[in-house]
């Protein structure tokens, strides 16, 4: 028989759990923002895994570096609004109650108007999208740009993505599905991750975003330089492809002079790529089926154009590739890349 105290305690736990999942703490801006934002930038920075890297012997945390860059951009975005989500590891009080370890920051016209903590409700972006939809001023004008910083988003559930969360892992399907929760068509999606310039991911994004910047191979944790997005300050109607190419060019110039590993960045014009991406996906799927083995193998990504039956002749349409081969290793002899990675 249950104690008479059981039900009030359970109720208290449930209430605490619900409030931990949903409450945010708004703050008042020091100066009221002026003017309706003309564009919206959404930064999703994954930090729920190991993001340590070294530069000239100094230890750095990729998510913290990306966060600082996002803050810098947000302060200069005087004609736009910026949402920054930092997905830190989620701890639980007594192993039960979520502790709200993720952070969001909302800037409007260069001013921080709101920030708070939250807990995830799934492996995707449901909670982040809910916060965005509740607070965004620009959601109706569809001038939205999405930036993701993290490890490779797997095509399938083959590896743990959020180290602090149990249950279903995060994958490309969930990413593309949840991207739509921020806006019907995102102008530009920047994937600052390893290996996501692949036919599966780009196919999933085909009807969700106009342009994509992604790496078809591994990408160093110093990530892509996305400051060029501030060109929107002078022309909010600038073509997303033009901005995408500026982001790719700036990033490539830095990475190709500092990295000894291969550097590859692709810009995909999805209005053109969506016409044929299914044809790329089929031989890729067949390849995956043929090479499928039990268990997870951390295979390296390779150029899709080497797969038998891959339609090389069409796959360059709408794709601009920035590529610098490795200075050492087996891939040092690969002097070009189709811009499509397979793994």
């Amino acid at each position, binding site marked *: 028989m249950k104690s008479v105290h059981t039900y009030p305690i359970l109720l208290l736990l449930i209430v605490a759990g619900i409030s931990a999942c949903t409450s945010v703490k708004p703050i008042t801006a020091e100066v009221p923002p002026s003017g309706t934002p003309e564009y919206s930038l959404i930064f999703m920075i994954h930090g729920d895994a190991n993001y340590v890297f070294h530069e000239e012997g100094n230890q750095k945390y990729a998510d913290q570096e990306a966060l600082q860059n996002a803050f810098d951009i947000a302060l200069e975005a005087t004609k736009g609004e910026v949402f920054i989500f930092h997905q830190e590891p989620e701890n639980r009080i007594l192993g039960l109650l979520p502790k709200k370890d993720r952070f969001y920051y909302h800037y409007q016209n260069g001013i921080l108007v709101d920030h708070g903590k939250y807990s995830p409700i799934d492996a995707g972006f449901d909670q982040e999208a809910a916060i965005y939809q509740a607070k965004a001023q620009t959601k109706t004008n569809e001038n939205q740009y999405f930036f993701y910083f993290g490890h490779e988003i797997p095509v399938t559930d083959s590896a743990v993505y959020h180290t602090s969360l149990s249950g279903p892992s995060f994958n490309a399907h969930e990413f593309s599905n949840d991207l739509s929760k921020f806006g019907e068509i995102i102008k530009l999606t920047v994937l600052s991750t*390893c290996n996501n310039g692949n036919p599966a991911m780009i196919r999933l994004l085909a009807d969700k975003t106009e342009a994509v910047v992604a790496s078809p191979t591994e990408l160093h944790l110093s990530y892509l330089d996305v400051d060029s997005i501030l060109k929107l300050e002078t022309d909010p109607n600038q073509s997303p492809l033009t901005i995408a190419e500026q982001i790719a060019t700036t990033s490539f110039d830095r990475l190709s002079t500092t990295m000894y590993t291969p550097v590859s960045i692709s810009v995909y014009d999805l209005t053109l790529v969506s016409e044929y991406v299914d044809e790329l996906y089929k031989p890729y799927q067949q390849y995956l089926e043929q090479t499928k083995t039990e268990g997870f193998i951390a295979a390296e990504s390779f150029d899709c154009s080497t797969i038998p039956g891959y339609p090389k002749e069409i796959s360059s349409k709408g794709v601009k590739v920035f590529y610098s081969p490795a200075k050492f290793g087996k891939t040092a002899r690969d002097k070009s890349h189709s811009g499509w990675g397979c793994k």
Partner: protein
Amino acid sequence: MKKLTLFTFVLGLFLSTAAVAQISDPHTAFKKHINEVVQQVEQTESPEEKRALLNNSLTDLVETIEQVENKENVPAEDKAQLAAFKNDLMDKKAELNGEAGFTQVPANQLNNFANFVQQDIEQADRVVTLSLTSALLIVLILLLL
């Protein structure tokens, strides 16, 4: 005598704190280990010593991974991943020494090669997606070498 006991206690406490720090975050400890090797290579003047440092470090890593691969409590998924990682390290060692069809890394490129190894290990998901158990075993074995 009391001073010696206190010193031993403080030293033990310090060492155990350092060990706990590494154990609580083995992925970072592993990357830190690689970084220390790169720093040593860069600070060494003689190309022969640089090559020997890199060679010994890569040998240690390969042997460590072999030991971890053979542990019963290592998940099957990790074993496949460790095998791929080990092959990659063996390729790097072969290139360093000009074996298995690779051209030997020139003496004036050894610092760059050390950075290549570090960048390749840090950016690839093969390290961070290893389970805590495997990462911990790697770090503990490396500490004992």
